[in-house]
């Protein structure tokens, strides 16, 4: 393939990017000219991922589960159906499964084989989630991975790692932080981070927020 040959010594990041950029542009040109894709549709798809998706959707779901026991039960029974009923997004993908952290159990989500991730509720996966360090270590040394994120769990907390090897998708329902008894759903959602829904983090504590 053309990209494997370099007739110059300039291997800096920028030149690699521009080479890739040219190759991707050529592919889009070919696919467009042959009538398989419409660039205007591609623009809209990019815009959607840049502006509409993200962990704010999942954060609303978690906050709702913290204040509404009925919703929480429904979420743990069938996350796709429960989240669809909230109407936050137009459609939720099938086979979404929410797994609950407890004082004695911590869940972590990984895809060791590729990059399976609950896009509809968390948005695009971050680079680290798709990277070799995370994919290789999460199933063997999750406490080491947590340490990379600055998280230390009690030594006797059970750790459950979910490897997303099929079309089932997982999100973590973290434990509600202490001293938030008087908080409403919207404020609670501000404590829910992307990483705590993957299981590489914990929700922010009330004292970590400015409000």
């Amino acid at each position: 393939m053309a990209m494997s040959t370099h007739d110059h010594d300039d291997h800096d990041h920028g030149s690699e990017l521009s080479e890739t950029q040219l190759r991707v542009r050529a592919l889009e040109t070919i696919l467009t000219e042959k009538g398989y894709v419409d660039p205007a549709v591609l623009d809209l798809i990019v815009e959607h991922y840049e502006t509409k998706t993200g962990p704010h959707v999942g954060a609303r779901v978690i906050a709702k589960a913290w204040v509404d026991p009925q919703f929480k039960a429904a979420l743990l029974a069938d996350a796709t159906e429960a989240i669809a009923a909230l109407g936050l997004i137009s459609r939720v993908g099938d086979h979404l499964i929410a797994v609950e952290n407890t004082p004695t159990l911590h869940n972590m989500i990984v895809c060791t084989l590729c990059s399976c991730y609950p896009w509809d509720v968390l948005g695009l996966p971050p680079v680290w989630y798709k990277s070799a360090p995370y994919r290789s270590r999460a199933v063997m040394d999750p406490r080491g991975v947590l340490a990379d994120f600055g998280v230390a769990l009690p030594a006797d907390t059970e750790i459950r790692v979910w490897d997303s090897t099929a079309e089932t998708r997982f999100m973590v329902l973290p434990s509600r932080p202490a001293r938030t008894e008087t908080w409403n759903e919207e404020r609670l959602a501000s404590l829910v981070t992307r990483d705590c829904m993957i299981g590489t983090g914990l929700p922010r504590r009330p004292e970590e927020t400015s409000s």
Partner: protein
Amino acid sequence: MNGVHDMGGMHGFGKVESEPNEPPFHAGWEGRVLAMQRALRATGAWNIDMSRDAQERLPAEVYLSVSYYHRWALGMERNALDQRLIDADEIAAGHALRPGKPVQRTMTKDTIGAAFTRGSFSRPTSTVGRFKPGDRVRTLNINPPSHTRLPRYARGRVGAVEAVRGCHVFPDSAATGAGENPQWLYTVVFEGRELWGESADPTLKVSVEAFEPYLEPA
């Protein structure tokens, strides 16, 4: 296949580096790659398992050295070539040299919603699942040269069926174009020590989503 994509339990890749305030894309072309992949779904020319398979068949040194969306682009090129949507001389030329071939559909502004939602992979069946929650099972020691979703670290191991997820499209078949061949899907959970030996973290449990053909009673 026993490729470098199957990373669970490997050493030597270093620390997990999280990027604060990471943008959706790090360059404009990354978004184009994602969008093309999504839009091409409509053509029905290949399925998600063929996409994964195409990336797994990249040379190992390429798989490990290129960025994520770059890998997607290389896989997409290979899928498009394999399915004869495009030809190698067109990639070399950088533009189409002959008309497109007929495809099921192309994505339009009206059908764009399909780009953002995963479809269902469960299929109706008249079969009864072989296992139920609580059953002890052993994963088979398989090493197919083609696409599979049973990672190496979880082969030949004893675990417990925790949940039955229904009857789903079987990736090992779908990836080769052999059809959906739906199979029962289970969450199978293993003790850390069963996977990693006596020095494993005693508090660790790991589950995989395992298709019935990967399992036998233990």
